[in-house]
């Protein structure tokens, strides 16, 4: 889901051409946006701000991705959280905690829990390409905003798809950037919304460098993701996505 590639731009295996927008076909628009957002591989530095009514925390994260399924996320600051890491291989997720010096595999029942206290869940990390594979897409509106064409696409779960949302509505700009994404619950009430607050250039591509996730039932609560630095289509060594590298980083 969107939340995931906010943090971890996972690569899409089917690398469709990231050419200019021509025919407004919903599947193609979404695919191009994904391809822009994720590449074959990526290394990004992200600042995550978690805002709560009573406190706010700012975490620094370094993330590596390879292909569609593999991701490693390592927290670098603050000191209390530095060293904690999450590794995703296929559908399995492990966490490493430096205090315990242990790797723990997450049970399936925990995947819907908050990831590091943020408004993202482990599922957001683990099921990143659900939106393409588990939903059907339909272009419902085309608007002009600030010199860009913005497409609104409604994604409805395929029958029997193992997803939690009733539907997802996405706004995508003609330069293949996600502008807004609203998740509706099974009662078709908007449950949470991610907005691109700032779109800039990152390693030569238009990119939502600042995004905020708002749970809509908690007014004074949000998580903001700012991507400070990113490299795409770089080669990440294979050992990176292993349990031993999760516990004992080689780099």
């Amino acid at each position, binding site marked *: 889901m969107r939340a995931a590639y906010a943090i971890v731009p996972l690569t899409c295996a089917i690398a469709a051409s990231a050419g200019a927008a021509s025919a407004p076909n919903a599947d193609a628009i979404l695919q191009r946006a994904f391809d822009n957002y994720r590449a074959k591989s990526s290394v990004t530095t992200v600042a995550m701000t978690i805002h709560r009514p009573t*406190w706010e925390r700012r975490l620094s994260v370094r993330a590596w991705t390879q292909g569609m399924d593999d991701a490693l996320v390592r927290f670098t600051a603050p000191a209390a959280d530095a060293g904690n890491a999450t590794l995703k291989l296929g559908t399995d997720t492990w966490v490493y905690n430096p205090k315990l010096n242990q790797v723990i595999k997450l049970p399936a029942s*925990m995947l819907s829990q908050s990831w*590091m206290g943020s408004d993202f869940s482990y599922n957001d990390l683990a099921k990143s390409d659900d939106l393409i594979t588990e939903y059907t897409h339909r272009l419902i509106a085309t608007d002009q905003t600030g010199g860009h064409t913005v497409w609104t696409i409604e994604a409805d779960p395929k029958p029997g798809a193992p997803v939690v949302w009733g539907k997802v509505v996405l706004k995508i700009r003609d330069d293949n950037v996600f502008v807004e994404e609203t998740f509706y619950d099974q009662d078709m009430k908007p449950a949470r919304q991610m907005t691109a607050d700032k779109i800039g250039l990152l390693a030569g591509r238009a990119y939502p460098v600042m995004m905020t996730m708002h749970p809509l039932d908690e007014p004074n609560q949000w998580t903001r993701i700012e991507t400070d630095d990113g490299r795409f289509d770089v080669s990440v060594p294979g050992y990176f996505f292993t349990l031993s590298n999760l516990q004992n980083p080689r780099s």
Partner: protein
Amino acid sequence: MLAALAWRNLWRRPQRTLLSLLSVAIVSGLLVFILSFQDGVYGQMKETTLRIFDGYAQLQAPGFADDPTLDRAIVQPEQLAHEAEGVPGVTVAAPRVNGFAILANGPRSYAAIVVGVDPASEARISSIASTIQEGRYLTASDTNSAILGDLLAKNLGVGVGGKVTMLGSARDGSVAADVLQVAGIYHSGVPELDRTILEMPFARAQDTFQMQDAANTIALSGPSLSSVDHALPVLEALARRTGVSVRDWQDMEPAMRDVIDLKYATSMLFYASLVLVVAFIILNTLLMSVLERTREFGMLLALGMRPSQIGTMVWTELLALALIGCAIGVAIGGGVTLWLQSTGILFPIDPKLLAQFGVPSRLYPSLSLFSALAGPGALVLAIAIGGLVPFLRVLRLTPALAMRGA
């Protein structure tokens, strides 16, 4: 004078009167016992279930019930617990930290509810301490010990003395990580608890979950559920003053409340039909006797008695019958109930089977003013209302026709 007449009339046919009395007495005695028994069983069921973990009531941080996050915290919980213990009807109050974490042992990991408890007061509220199967319960001197349910222990593949790794989110969003040593394994008999709950020392839970000087809930207990229920208004006032909320047993165990309500509703149907049947039997008997006595009533009318006086006399006979019968029934039924209340009734059913429903194998009826008087009261009322039928019939009598027996 009418009452004396009615009384004398009753004993003109002693056999019929005694039989009527007997049926009223048996039914009202039965009602007293059944109602007391039902109250007693449900009371025990509630207490047994609540004693496992919930406590008879809880003080909670506002909103914790709907959204049980660490952020919903009670500050200075020890002080509030101390105040709650001062409320008459409440004898023990135990603050708890309720965290959520992954427990892991090697490659095995399971989600669990991690509860920080004060061992001494917790043992007086929750029966988990007394269902330890292996090892021991927590003690005040424990620092890194934990107890967990047998199903959770089995899932994790950990035994007494083994180590469990815990990883969750602390109150401030940071990582809550700890390693605990298993001191004991409990078997509460409730799979949801045995599979999910780990208890650890309160202070360490506060430390691990960044809950300094805070707790999420305070579990309360007392000599009985009703004593805590009676203390609820005072607890409400205390809660309002300190900005927390009170949850009573019905709020904590809504499913149990619904089941009990449903059972009461269905048994009420049964009681009502019992009362109706007996009332009709008695009325039938009386109507017969009124018909038999038509000539006698004609004579009384001819002597100058007004129809309403005769009607009242008949109605008084009926009421006397009902009241005396019920009094006997309440006395005998209440006596038997009181006796069984002290000895208990042992059911020859597998105790394990009963335990699934939170029912012990020895059951105690519970006699109360309500259970003693509700059934018989309803019976008297039904007979008194039904007695209007013969009363109205007598009103229609005229001396000449009645004397001819028409």
